[in-house]
């Protein structure tokens, strides 16, 4: 079975400093991995996805993530945080053989950006 661990429930950074949100996954297959962002009182928006092409994936709003198979990790980074980045971030692993509950969500990491 697939699973996702987000190691930090809350991360706080100062504006202009780097962001690192950690995600580790467990999968029996070569997975697809996603990061979604949820701003307060909004739905989830796709930031980026990995689907077995380049291991360094660039997404929207300056975010990127690197797939490391040996570490079973897919950490999300951004060089310089902006106030508008404050939100909840979800790491997701996709189970290609489960046609229903094929998205397995991590518990989320809340990012706070301090002025």
């Amino acid at each position: 079975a697939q699973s996702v661990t987000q190691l930090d429930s809350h991360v706080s950074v100062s504006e202009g400093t780097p962001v690192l949100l950690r995600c580790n996954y467990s999968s029996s297959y070569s997975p697809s991995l996603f990061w979604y962002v949820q701003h307060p009182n909004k739905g989830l928006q796709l930031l980026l996805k990995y689907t077995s092409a380049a291991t360094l994936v660039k997404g929207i709003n300056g975010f990127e993530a690197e797939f490391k198979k040996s570490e079973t990790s897919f950490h999300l980074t951004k060089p310089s945080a902006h106030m508008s980045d404050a939100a909840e971030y979800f790491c997701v692993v996709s189970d290609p053989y489960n046609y229903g509950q094929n998205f397995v969500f991590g518990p989320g990491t809340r990012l706070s950006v301090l002025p």
Partner: protein
Amino acid sequence: GAGVSQSPSNKVTEKGKDVELRCDPISGHTALYWYRQSLGQGLEFLIYFQGNSAPDKSGLPSDRFSAERTGGSVSTLTIQRTQQEDSAVYLCASSPTSGGSSYEQYFGPGTRLTVT
């Protein structure tokens, strides 16, 4: 183009009443998913549709919850005899198809349900 829409955006209801939540997926998307997000929690899978059929209802928390999808498009999630623990944000998502791990899900803005 138009994204996933949900209505109402907010719903306040009294305990014991029935409620219906609506989801309009992206046109042409055959897969549709319902999730529940309780305060400060992650996403809880409820049900999945492929076309009009629901091959996976495993996440529905009780028999008070049901869902249908008609015309391969609009879906309605119905909660009967609502309880206070049903208070949550209900999110709908659609995808071009099911399985095939590269397909992302596109989420609607959610319906915030409050049971008083």
